[in-house]
Every structure is written in C-alpha cells, then in structure tokens.
C-alpha cells in the first residue's frame, strides 16, 4: 500500500515538472517571445557599432571556443598513444650547413618522407647555401616549406624559400590565422582565385602525397576548404606523444634505425621550455584557454597533429550553421516555456528559477557540446544556444509590454494581462 502511495507520489512529481515545461510550450506567446529573442540577436548583431570594445568579458573571450576546454582541462589527449608514424628531429639553431648535415644523416636512416619545416628567404653564406642546395636536390623524398603569397595581380605563388626549384616537392606552412590567434584550422590546398587549376598544397598535404598517395586524393576534395585541426597530441617536458630526437643524438648515431625507417620525419625547431616562444603558436591545447597567455606549441608539432589527423582519418565534422540555429531555437523555445510558466504563475520564484535554469542549462549544453565533439568528432557551436538562454529572461519583460500594447491596439490575444507586474 505504502509502495503504491510512494509510486503515485513520484509519478505526480514527474508530471508536475513536465507540466511546468509543457504547459505553455504551444502557446502563441511562447513562440512569439522565442522569435523576439532572435530578432534581438539579429538587431544587436547588425548594429554598426563595436559595443564590446570596453567589455572585458567580450575582449577576454574574443578567441575562445568551448572545445578548447576539452583539450586544456578535460585531459582529452591523456590516453592517446604516441604516433609512431611520425618522428620529429629538432634542428635547434643549426645554420644551413648544419641543416644539410641533419638532412643527410636523416636520409641515411631511410625514412619514407622528410619534411623540412624551415623557410630560407634569401641567400646567406655562399658555400653553406651550395651545400644545402646540393643536399636538397639529392633527396627526392624531401618536402620543403614555403609560404603562399599573392602578387600584384592576386595570383598565388610559393615564396620565402631560396632553394625552391620546379622539380622539388614543397608545401606551404602558413595558417589562415593571425599570429596572435589560436591555430584551429588550415587549408589542405589553396587555389588561385582566377586560375582554379593553379593549386598549391599545404606542407602536410605534400608530405602525405609521398607517404600515402591514396589519402592525398581524398584530401584534394578539401581544396580551399577551411579544415578544423583535430589536435590529439602534445610534445612538452612532461608529455611526449611524438618521438623527438635531438640533433646531437642523430649526428652521433645514437638512434635506433627502426625508429626512422619508413616513417615520416619532420625536421623543425622544437623547444620544450615554456618560456621560449620562438616559432610557437597558440593552440586549443593551451593550458590557459581564455584571456592573455603565451603560445604553447611549436609549429612543427602543429603540422605533426595535422598529419596524425589525416593518417588516422580523424577529421572533425562541423555542424552547419542552420543546425546550430535550429538547436538554438529548440533550446530557447523550451526555456521560454519554463520561464513564462514561472513569470505568470509563480512570479516570486521567477528570477531564482530562471537563474538556476540558466546555470544548469549552461553546464548541461556545454557538456553536450563536449560529448558530441569527443564521441562523434562533431563540432556544435553552443554559443548561440547559450546566448538565447541568457537573453530569454530579459526578452520576457519586453514581450509582455509588446503583447499588452498589441492587445490594446489590435486585440491581440495574449496570456499576459495588463499591469501583470
């Protein structure tokens, strides 16, 4: 008897919660109030004024993305094993002669591809330049780094590599981000705006062409498509998810041949001292995911992460804009229904309930974003959804006034009563 009573009680409680959300769900006012939230967002967003220039929160979060938290704080990369297909050799501060020696030594271990992540803008010392040029010409499995630039006629061309020749393989190392921005995306290929057949590969695409040509053809479909980099591995003083060899160890034959044979070997500058920011980029793996911080990852490790992503076919899919908007509409609609219930029926609890719902929903939906990203590599932008939850509370006040005015003027049918609050 008492079990039945208890069961009945919890059933009633469930119905009550359900009732709170659904009672006003299909009301015209709920739908219109939801619509008004989006009108506000569009109107505020299209004002030709930079209203955020003095807003420290906005400035702090300018380069923020929710998925950064999953890299920096949720140990997303913790159990990811070393990528044994890729080995990084530190070129440290070696000059052109030193780099030539490093290439020769690396080549003697018979790697499948050698990627040299260093640009050489012009001539320096003739004898050392000749030495490096001869070495570069000799090794057909070497991929050089260039930067893509556009000339006065807007035609793209590879630049900043004095040793570049038509017969050599090369790829660009530029990222479509400012130096002060987080490197989140890259272009696998860039084509010329006018001559579409003129196409430059990225450094990593050129390496893949030599390492696994069958993957290269798939990459070609991503021409001019900004591709999200799925960072999976770090290289730091405490975490080594790529093999890194110091030049001294290589030159003194202190390396097991099996470590390099048949692999992708990347030659680039690596310094694990967090205070050394030479050739370091901001990445989503930065320990500090908002506000001012220092760059955290050497460019060569960013390229290694791109290569791992391609080799593991671990690309991130991005939810289309319409999907994000649809999700935001749905979330806003549900919240609006709950808020209107409290606004009309228990106004004394309205603000408390709204604040609790906002915090709980923020935590829940951010988790949902992480979950989809982690499980299905689907990137859903939750910013709009969270913004609608925040705005919904204020929009109710505006909507009430608007609905009552409409009621007086045009006999608009509304659940809000004059001088309700």
């Amino acid at each position, binding site marked *: 008897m008492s079990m039945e009573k208890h069961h009945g009680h919890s059933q009633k409680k469930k119905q009550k919660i359900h009732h709170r959300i659904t009672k006003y769900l299909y009301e015209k006012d709920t739908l219109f109030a939801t619509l008004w939230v989006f009108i506000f967002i569009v109107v505020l967003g299209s004002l030709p004024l930079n209203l955020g220039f003095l807003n420290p929160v906005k400035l702090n979060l300018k380069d923020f993305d929710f998925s950064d938290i999953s890299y920096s704080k949720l140990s997303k990369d913790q*159990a990811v094993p070393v990528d044994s297909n890729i080995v990084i050799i530190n070129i440290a501060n070696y000059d052109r002669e030193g780099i030539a020696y490093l290439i020769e030594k690396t080549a003697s271990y018979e790697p499948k591809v050698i990627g040299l992540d260093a640009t050489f803008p012009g001539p320096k010392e003739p004898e050392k330049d000749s030495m490096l040029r001869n070495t570069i010409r000799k090794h057909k499995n070497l991929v050089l780094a260039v930067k893509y630039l556009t000339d006065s006629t807007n035609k793209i061309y590879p630049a900043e590599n004095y040793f570049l020749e038509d017969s050599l393989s090369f790829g660009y190392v530029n990222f479509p981000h400012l130096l002060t921005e987080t490197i989140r995306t890259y272009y696998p290929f860039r084509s010329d705006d006018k001559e579409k057949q003129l196409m430059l590969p990225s450094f990593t695409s050129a390496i893949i062409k030599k390492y696994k040509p069958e993957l290269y053809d798939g990459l070609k479909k991503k021409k001019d498509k900004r591709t999200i980099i799925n960072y999976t591995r770090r290289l730091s003083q405490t975490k080594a998810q790529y093999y890194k060899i110091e030049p001294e160890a290589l030159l003194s034959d*202190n390396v097991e041949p099996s*470590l390099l044979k048949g692999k992708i070997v990347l030659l680039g500058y690596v310094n694990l001292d967090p*205070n050394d920011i030479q050739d370091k980029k901001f990445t989503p793996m930065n320990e500090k995911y908002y506000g001012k911080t220092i760059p955290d990852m050497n460019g060569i490790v960013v390229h290694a992460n791109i290569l791992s992503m391609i080799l593991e076919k671990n690309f991130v899919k991005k939810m289309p804009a319409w999907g994000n908007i649809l999700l935001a509409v749905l979330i806003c609609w549900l919240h609006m229904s709950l808020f209107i219930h409290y606004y009309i029926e228990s106004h004394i609890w309205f603000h408390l309930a709204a604040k609790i719902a906002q915090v709980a929903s923020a935590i829940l939906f951010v988790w949902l974003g*992480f979950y989809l990203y982690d499980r299905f590599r689907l990137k859903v932008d939750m910013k709009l959804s969270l913004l609608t939850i925040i705005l919904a509370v204020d929009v109710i006040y505006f909507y009430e006034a608007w609905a009552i005015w409409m009621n007086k003027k045009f006999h608009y049918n509304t659940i809000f009563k004059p001088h309700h609050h």
Partner: protein
Amino acid sequence: MRTLIAVLILSFWMHRLPAQNQFLIYSLKGNVSAIENNKEEKVKVGKLLSATSTLKLDAGATVSLICNEVNLFTLSKPGNYQLSKFGDSCNVNRSSLSASYLKFVWAQLTKPSASVGSNRNAYMQTTGAVTRSLNDIWIDPRLDTINYCEGDFPLSWKCYSDAKEFDFMLFNSSNILEPFYTTSVKKLKISIPSFINRLKPGNTYYWIAAVKGGENEDRKVFNYVKKETYEQLLKKIKSQIKGYESPAEEAFRTAFMLEDAHYLAEAYQYYQKAASLDSANVLYRSTLMAFKKDYEIK
C-alpha cells in the same frame, strides 16, 4: 565439450592477463646500457625494452622512457633499474570526459577568485602524504619535510599535556632508532642554528620532539641542503619571469615559491625583504605576519 570449455576458459584468462609493459628510450644523456637476457648492451634513442630488462645508468647519465607509448618518465640517478618495477609509470588515466567535465565544473565553481599569492594559507597545502603515530606532541605537517640551507628559523610543536620540558632529538638516516643528538628545551620550539653545526650539508636527517622522558615515534624529515643546490633553485625561481618585476615583487614571489618548495627559513628572509622594500603594501605585511604566526616566529 570439455576441451572446448577448457579452451574458452584459457582464452578468457589469457585475455584478462595484463599485457606486458614496453619501454621505449625517448632521450638519453651519458652512458646508459640495458641488460636483456644477461647480455649488456649500450642503448640508443628508440630502443624498445621489455619489462624484464634492467637499465644501468652511469654517473651523470639521464634517460627518459615512454611506457606503452603513453607515459613519459625520467631516471637520472646512477644505478641499476629493473623496468618491471616501474609498472605505476605505465598506468593511464582513462577517466571519462563526463567525469572530467563534472570535476572541472566543480573545481571552477569552488575556486577562490583571488590570485594564489594573495592567500598564502589557502594555497600552501603541500604537506607530506603520511601522518605518523599519535602522542602528546603535535607537529605541524608543514614542518615535515623541510629543506634548509641557511638562516634563523625555529622547529616548533604543540603539546596537549602540561609538560614544561621537552626532549629534542636528531637521527641519522642510517639509524633512525638511536638519536645522535639530544637536548632539552623549555620552550615549544628550537632554533635551527642551535644544532646545525652537528649536521653535514647534503644529508637527510630526522627530528622529533617529545615530552621529557617520554617517547614520540613521529619522525620528521629535515634535509640539510648544500648551498649550490639551494642557489640553483634560487636562480631557477628568479629566471622565471622575463618581463619587468620590481625588487619587492620579486622578493615576494621568491618567498612564495621557496615556501612552496619547503625552504621555510629562506622563504622567511624573502618575505621580510618584500615587506621592507614595499612597506606600504598590505599584502606583503599581512603575509609576513601570517607566516610568522604559522611557524611560531616571535
């Protein structure tokens, strides 16, 4: 049928057996060799070793290993190391994203908003991992373990009984049963310089305080650090900020980091320096007062 069941059980058991750990030489410096199947061989970067191998490090050698392609750890003291004993370094934290997220949200919600330096006591929870024995004497866990190089600083304790006199004893790490130095004190503290000339820098000692004639097994660790070691640490601390830092700011940061590293006597000197260099700074003064109160410095 019985054979089938036996095969099934065997395969299940084999599946449950933990895979043997594998260690890859990630980097090395100096002379490092591996003993495998009673055969000693110099190792190179990239060499894969099984858990049955033994690593031999000569003086000045350092080697970093990656276990099971995930965990990195470093060995730097000379000696022989059986890799089978490094099983803990192969454990991988595979906590779920949801659990990590909840922990993160909770940590953020309960995190004090002030900077670490502004609330020394809230941050300085770096005491030892163990609590040893129960008796009339209570020694603040922050005094176990301490590193000392120079300066005046007291070792203090609290007493739950009405005792008026206490025995202070020092032990060598080679014999922690018989004290090599015992003295009686009437206060609830003893100044380190009063016994330091009996100790040799670079060694670890243990100390206790007990009610006179009583016993206390609660040994506390005292590392008498060589001046070079301390100066190396100090140099590292001072080099950590590349931008401009005023002398008072530097002294305060140094003090805070020294205290975190359990160099209490040295931290005291730097807290004093910070407070005297910027006497108008309330944080520096209040931190110095709190530090003196915590460690019974009168």
